[in-house]
């Protein structure tokens, strides 16, 4: 991708190599589990073979006597409940198991293999319980209740659990009068959808190494996107003074939201406590990472859209049933965030959304690159059905309904002048996919090529007081050290933030060193590296820190340069008189204090401080959804081209494109990589991924032998373009883009397949067999 903003900026808009690249490609980077503290013990987890069962007894006697074993613990040893928003999760199952793969016991031993070997000696007696297989089943009046004690669970106020049912949260959006609008609409389409839960399959399985130091300090090194969230929850749930908890956050090998909550840290701490505070390593096996730890949320939905004859949307009536699995984790907030974003970047005057987070006996769910934005797939499919009913081009239909500044969002917040340009994104996506060539081409011999389009938007879903901080310190050569609370999760934000500081200083990004790991007792506070908010918020804090440092540099330099602060400028590693650039000082002679020839020193070291806190956000009303929860919306359009063999349903995805309004592009290559990575991930769960359950709710494909994800070499051509409506309050006008590449792909892909075969395909994943069986169904309309 060509560099774009070169004329206006020196370091922004340039694809400088990522700072974490050399250590990663050479295998030298130290991930969470690459550290082996002296005296470290190793834990292994015994997991449930059942989806829903009473635990009658657990006998760890034989395991406890096995070689090298230091402790065998079960849920009975830890009478506590953990949770992000809703405290529903025992560290180890207690009384009963609620999903296949749920940890029921842990063995701590001197070596990893002793711990693993001893697991075979733990005896567990279960009594199987009726299994809840889907959100729709969970809502049936006679459904087994998965969390009998829900009424006693603690939760944050924006979450609305419904005790005596399987509903962990219900979010309502009520905008306008949907019933009246649907009654008057010229065309109404209504469709049902579903897709199964799955997994992120991050390359790095989750890991936590916990120890309790002699002074009571709890130190946990974790593969976490959210060290400060972990620290706060550890303090809340275990009563540890927050300052006595240190979370170490090294770079992680893929997070995608799966490492954004509290994961293994609580259990690792309890395990360390069980062995007198010695360091304990708890590292997921791949199989545990697939089903014992949380994965991608499943969804069932019923979507109804009404429009006028000329293609203006008048109403959206939306029912979303998120499949939370056995525990709530982030899912209770994802169902809320999905409701806030549905039906997507369209100006719809009447919206009624009921978005439920529903317990089932599936492995539990958490954030998955996006946050409940699975809601777009049903809507985008329905938009194509609507276009067909209206005899209208799907691109035109979407553009006609694009949300614009001044329109009301689903939560009835006024869209501000920063609102991205969806019409332009649609136009670009259509151009890139070759829409003008016809969206369905019969190639003969049973082969058809077809294209599908979709739109998406996403704002960070985060607490209203979400903040970020940056501290800049300086070295003898004038270079800067940047410390923030964000984690390198492969997204490249360290590089982007360095470019932002470099731009402000007018010095090479090589002169901005970013700390590769964070420790919560040293780094400025931050919420989490999630929600596509890091570059925006930490970028803003970095600008503030840079300005603060520059002010200090000027103040120190103004004395030896014998001028006023206002007359000075900083660039090219110097501070100099603006109108006489030869008159100045090298930064290296200022940043640690200026020393006069006679030895007198002034100024002291420069420490730049910057912070940012989200502006003007509110929660939403429990009954109408009214409120202002969205900091900035990133809007875009995507399109997919497929070639399908109608004889047996086999197909190839030929091309996937994305046009996204990101404001300013800080680093084009990294931005493109984020978007392409998102599209690739999304094609994975759209085409092939997802758990397969047997009749007892057990996961049949709980190993990578059977849980297939696309590999390099199996991908289509990707094309990405950026539209640049500046985000006024973003750093240099930039807005977030880390997750958005995922969001429109399921809809665009399903639309392409549906168009190719002339029948709607409303379930994911769309495998060749699903296409074949859809084509061989007798009834019109078919699935589901």
């Amino acid at each position, binding site marked *: 991708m060509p560099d774009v903003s070169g004329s206006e900026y020196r370091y922004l808009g340039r694809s400088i190599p990522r700072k974490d690249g050399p250590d990663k490609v050479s295998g030298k980077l130290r991930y969470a589990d690459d550290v082996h503290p002296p005296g470290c013990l190793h834990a292994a987890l015994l997991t449930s073979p059942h989806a829903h069962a009473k635990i009658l007894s657990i006998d760890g006697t034989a395991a406890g006597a096995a070689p090298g074993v230091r402790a065998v613990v079960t849920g009975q040893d830890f009478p506590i409940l953990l949770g992000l928003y809703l405290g529903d999760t025992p560290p180890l199952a207690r009384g009963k198991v609620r999903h296949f793969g749920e940890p029921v016991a842990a063995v701590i031993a001197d070596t990893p*293999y002793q711990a693993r070997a001893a697991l075979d000696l733990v005896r567990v007696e279960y009594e199987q319980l009726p299994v809840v297989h889907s959100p729709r089943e969970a809502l049936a009046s006679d459904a087994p209740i998965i969390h009998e004690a829900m009424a006693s669970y603690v939760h944050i106020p924006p979450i609305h659990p419904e005790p005596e049912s399987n509903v962990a949260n219900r979010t309502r959006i009520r905008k306008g009068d949907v019933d009246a609008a649907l009654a008057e609409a010229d065309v109404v389409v209504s469709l049902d959808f579903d897709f199964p839960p799955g997994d992120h399959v991050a390359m790095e399985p989750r890991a936590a190494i916990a120890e309790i130091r002699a002074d009571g300090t709890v130190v946990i090194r974790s593969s976490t996107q959210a060290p400060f969230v972990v620290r706060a929850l550890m303090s809340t749930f275990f009563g540890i003074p927050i300052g006595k908890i240190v979370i170490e956050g090294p770079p992680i090998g893929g997070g995608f939201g799966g490492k954004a909550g509290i994961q293994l840290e609580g259990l690792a701490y309890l395990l360390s406590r069980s062995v007198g505070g010695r360091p304990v390593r708890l590292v997921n096996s791949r199989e545990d990472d697939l089903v014992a730890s949380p994965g991608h949320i499943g969804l069932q939905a019923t979507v109804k859209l009404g429009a006028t004859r000329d293609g203006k949307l008048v109403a959206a009536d939306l029912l979303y049933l998120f499949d939370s699995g056995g525990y709530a984790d982030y899912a209770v907030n994802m169902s809320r965030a999905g409701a806030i974003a549905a039906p997507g970047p369209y100006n719809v005057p009447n919206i009624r959304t009921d978005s439920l987070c529903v317990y089932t006996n599936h492995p539990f769910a958490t954030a998955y690159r996006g946050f409940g934005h699975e809601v777009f797939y049903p809507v985008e499919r329905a938009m194509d059905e609507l276009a067909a009913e209206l005899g209208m081009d799907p691109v035109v239909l979407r553009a006609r309904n694009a949300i614009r500044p001044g329109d009301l969002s689903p939560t009835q917040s006024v869209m501000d002048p920063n609102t991205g340009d969806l019409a332009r994104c649609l136009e670009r996506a259509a151009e890139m996919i070759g829409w003008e060539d016809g969206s369905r081409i019969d190639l003969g011999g049973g082969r058809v090529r077809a294209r599908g389009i979709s739109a998406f938007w996403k704002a960070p879903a985060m607490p209203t007081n979400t903040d970020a901080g940056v501290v800049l310190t300086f070295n003898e050569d004038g270079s800067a050290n940047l410390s923030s609370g964000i984690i390198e999760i492969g997204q490249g934000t360290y590089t982007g933030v360095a470019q932002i500081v470099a731009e402000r200083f007018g010095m090479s990004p090589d002169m901005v060193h970013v700390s590769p790991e964070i420790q919560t007792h040293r780094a400025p506070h931050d919420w989490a590296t999630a929600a596509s908010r890091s570059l925006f918020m930490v970028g803003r804090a970095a600008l503030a820190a840079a300005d603060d440092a520059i002010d200090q540099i000027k103040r120190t330099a103004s004395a030896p340069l014998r001028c006023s602060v206002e007359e000075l400028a900083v660039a090219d590693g110097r501070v100099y008189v603006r109108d006489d650039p030869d008159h100045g000082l090298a930064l290296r002679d200022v940043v640690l204090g200026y020393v006069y020839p006679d030895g007198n020193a002034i100024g002291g070291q420069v420490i730049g401080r910057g912070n940012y806190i989200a502006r003007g956000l509110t929660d939403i009303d429990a009954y109408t959804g009214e409120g202002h929860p969205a900091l900035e919306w990133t809007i875009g359009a995507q399109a997919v081209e497929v070639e399908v063999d109608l004889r*047996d349903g086999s197909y190839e995805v030929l091309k996937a494109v994305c046009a996204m309004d990101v404001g300013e592009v800080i680093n084009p290559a990294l931005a493109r990589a984020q978007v392409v990575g998102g599209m690739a991930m999304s094609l994975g769960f759209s085409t092939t991924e997802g758990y397969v359950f047997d009749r007892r709710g057990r996961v049949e494909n709980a190993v990578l*032998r059977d849980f297939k994800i696309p590999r390099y070499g*199996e991908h289509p051509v990707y094309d990405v373009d950026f539209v640049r409506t500046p985000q006024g309050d973003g750093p240099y006008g930039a807005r977030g883009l880390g997750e958005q590449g995922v969001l429109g792909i399921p809809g665009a892909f399903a639309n392409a397949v549906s168009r190719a075969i002339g029948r709607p395909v409303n379930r994911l994943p769309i495998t*060749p*067999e699903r296409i074949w069986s859809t084509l061989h169904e007798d009834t019109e309309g078919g699935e589901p």
Partner: protein
Amino acid sequence: MIPHNLVYYRPSSLEEAVAAYREADEAGLDTFYYGGGTEILTFARRGNLKPGAVIDIKHIPECMALREEGGRCLFGAGLPLNAVIEGGSFPLLSRAAVIVDHTVRNRLSLGGNIAGRLPYRETVLPFLLADAEARLVGPDGERGVPLREVFDRRLKLESGELLISLSVPRAITETPWFYRRRVRKTRLDYPVLTACFVKVEGQIRAATTAAFGFPVWSPRFDDVLNDGAIPVSERPARAIDAAGLRIADNARASAAYRRALLESAIGEALDALL
């Protein structure tokens, strides 16, 4: 991680391999010959297999042979699949050996694919069609037998016996062939259908795997394919029925879909080869 200890043998001759097996077996160890170890490693780390001893055959020259001799093409059982593919002397085999990804094929051995635990054994199909001879060695010494006599769904080896190599007549490797592989979605997955067809002296031979859950070569199946009294369009369905086997039905593909894929593959093979 294999969470238990095991004994590793690295023989450099067939005699040493057999002796190693005897030694381990007498010590009461569950013993496996192996080439690549991909199956052993992946099963053992999850506790589905607990080998007590493994015997690495990669350093036995006979197991690594890849050559033509006496009008036959010889393939050592220890060859990694990429060596078989790049050897190129048997085009249908080179095609059928393109399974999983390149990195795994650098390890995965021909003998392991045929004699391992996984039921698909895709690389055996070309050999079943090509009058292959299997070279075996065991406690009673070496023997050469027609592959079809020792292969029924899986390789029927005596206790302690090792597959050294397979050989096929050069002439058969040059006959017309047709190959079809279908997966649930990603080609790195196991097949839901793999079918190989060759035409030898005017007669079509077929072998499939995955469709029926394991490798199948059936004279009754081939008889239908070659029966001039049956209209060509009816032969796919009739041949499948003639095999008299239940079609596999599981999470990767339903029986109905597999049957449709198999009928389509046979139809296209007949078009290509008749």
